[in-house]
């Protein structure tokens, strides 16, 4: 059945469809609607689960991991500061090898504090051991939560997953979403039965004990890394199962107008929808441009990205995040997917934009592609990330600085 759902409602709906048993929660904008909906459905007896309001995200993520360890299907959700507040526990949950699924509704990170999205929050968790799926649309959000359980609970993986959706752009935006029936979801995702590690009186276990030997420590960390890499294939397996059941297909990396493209933009998440429109316009103008959207951020689909970008003239990597003192976070990862190839693009340029929800429109995408084309033609490689900031952005900031009592600022 098709419904008009916000991104947040899409998450909550998927959680209900997945027959999740347990949801430790803590509110934070723009995630809160997810836990409000789940709480209401549980109170109205539309969902047989327990939701517990915890005292912080640190406690919330801890409780989620511990419950999963004890054998229930567990979900939780957070954003931004909440993710950072619970950060220590992300590494712990991955080490506990628990298939918790957590929605992160992306929002910029303080200071300065803000509400609107960029990806510094979720990308800070990239080394934690959580798998990461980044969604472009509300439909993909709903479908990805279901797929996340399929992948996380696979015995070849057994790692938690973050499903990322952009605050505001998806969280509060209604889109038509095809909502499957509970039974249809159950047919591909049956009740969670833990196979090892869980605790009850029949099964005394020691979990997460100290490992004071570097060899054993390395063994456990390497296991996690290899299990994460398994998720590249397990995603494919889950994707096939999902497509068979629902007719929608998700690849770890998504190409758009790529085949004969000379210049390609690489990006993630909801702004991709605007980029698609820009690519279409540029195509109409006769420019051979295309797009690559990375859906699976962890494990990083290095080989697939390499194959998709091989032979292109120029690649622009648009990071909606900033590693202060380095630049875009995804840029070096994309470089790493290409460097070893003799057919790598001539130029791979780093752009940063959309921080704190700053608008990126079609003209910005055209600018990005023009700079990339120019860079190839002139054989000029910018050594630092190009920071997108228009004249109109600057005049608006100047105006605010004036109101803030900073006087006239030279441009």
């Amino acid at each position, binding site marked *: 059945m098709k419904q008009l759902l916000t991104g947040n409602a899409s998450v909550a709906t998927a959680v209900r469809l997945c027959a999740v048993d347990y949801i430790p929660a803590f509110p934070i904008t723009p995630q809160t609607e997810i836990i409000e909906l789940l709480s209401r459905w549980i109170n109205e007896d539309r969902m047989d689960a327990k939701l517990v309001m915890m005292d912080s995200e640190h406690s919330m993520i801890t409780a989620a991991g511990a419950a999963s360890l004890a054998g229930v299907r*567990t979900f939780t959700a957070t954003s931004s500061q909440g993710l950072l507040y619970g950060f220590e526990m992300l590494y712990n949950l991955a080490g506990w090898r628990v298939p918790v699924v957590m929605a992160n509704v992306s929002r910029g990170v303080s200071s300065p504090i803000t509400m609107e999205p960029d990806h510094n929050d979720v990308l800070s968790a990239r080394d934690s051991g959580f798998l990461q799926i980044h969604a472009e649309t509300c439909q993909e959000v709903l479908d990805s939560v279901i797929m996340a359980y399929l992948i996380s609970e696979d015995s070849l993986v057994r790692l938690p997953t973050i499903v990322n959706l952009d605050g505001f752009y998806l969280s509060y935006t209604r889109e038509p979403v095809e909502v499957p029936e509970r039974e249809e979801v159950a047919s591909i995702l049956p009740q969670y039965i833990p196979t090892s590690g869980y605790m009850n009186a029949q099964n005394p276990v020691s*979990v997460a004990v100290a490992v004071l030997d570097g060899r054993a420590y390395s063994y456990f960390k390497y296991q996690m890394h290899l299990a994460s890499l398994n998720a590249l294939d397990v995603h494919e397996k889950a994707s096939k199962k999902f497509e068979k059941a629902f007719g929608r297909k998700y690849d770890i990396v998504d190409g758009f107008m790529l085949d004969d493209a000379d210049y390609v933009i690489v990006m993630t998440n909801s702004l991709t929808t605007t980029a698609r429109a820009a690519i279409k316009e540029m195509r109409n103008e006769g420019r051979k441009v295309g797009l690559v959207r990375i859906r699976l951020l962890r494990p990083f689909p290095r080989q697939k990205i390499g194959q998709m970008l091989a032979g292109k003239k120029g690649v622009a990597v648009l990071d909606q995040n900033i590693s202060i003192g380095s630049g875009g976070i995804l840029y070096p990862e994309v470089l790493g997917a290409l460097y070893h190839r003799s057919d790598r693009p001539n130029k791979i340029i780093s752009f940063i934009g959309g921080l704190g929800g700053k608008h990126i429109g079609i003209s910005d995408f055209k600018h990005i592609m023009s700079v990339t084309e120019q860079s190839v033609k002139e054989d000029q490689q910018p050594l630092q990330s190009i920071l997108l900031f228009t004249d109109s952005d600057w005049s608006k900031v100047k105006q605010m600085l004036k109101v803030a009592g900073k006087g006239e600022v030279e441009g």
Partner: protein
Amino acid sequence: MTTKTLKDLPVEESLTSGTMLCAGCGGLLLVRIFEKVLGQNAVTVNAAGCMSMLSVFPNTPFKSSWFYVAMASAPAAAQGIRDALDILIKKGRVKKEDDLKVVVITGDGAASDIGLQATSGAMHRRLDFYYLVYDNEGYSNTGFQASSASPFSSATKTTIPSALAPEGNLLDKKDLFEIWTAHKPPYVATISPAYIADMMRKIEKASQFAGPKLFIAHSPCPPGWDVDSDAVIRLSKLAVETGIWPLKEAVNGEVTHSVIQKKRKPVEEYLKLQGRFEHLFEPARQDKVLQTIQNKIDAYWARVEK
């Protein structure tokens, strides 16, 4: 309420020997007795501290389940496990008889400092769990720095007596018992390794209640307190006899004392056995500081006996 004696202590051990903890560890003795009394259908949830060194891969001294979490959130992990077991039992996926008691064991730093919020949350939610704090009055596992449970005038690695602060620690011990009791959980008690029968009676009493059951245990730390390993029980006994460690319990917020001395020994007898208070006696007696400590104890008991 039955009166317990040492003969009532179960013979079977839940915590076996051969761990890497320090000889004479007061905390370990407490944990051993606590686990013995609770039995093996338990999961011990641990926050970073000395006891984290009990289970070190590939060994564990526990016959029951053990779960190391992180320093700040052991009570939150207890919440997750308790809720999960309740859900599984309700949905018929785990048998009622395979249920586990959930037991949080942390040091005083995790309890009074970094994990105070998580414990407050668990108490507020009426979580059905046991919490044992082995209170060795400092961050022992990292070499004995001051925690908020370190008593006034004790020497720690971060309160070394000096010309500027000859008394050592300038701050009073945080009153965790009162903080916990203010949440009105069904059961809070202080216990001591020198009073095992008192401890057994309290655990038995606590086990009648659903909800948070919390214990703060006097836990002499030979290296941190600078005492010999064989002095631990003597010290714990003196702590009670001098009144510096009151043995008490609070049922739904109502406090009663389980041991009241007819005549308390002077606190000096307790202090002078410990290297961490040596500066109060040598090279010169700090009479004013000693009097302050004694006055605080006397004032406490004056309130109790009023």
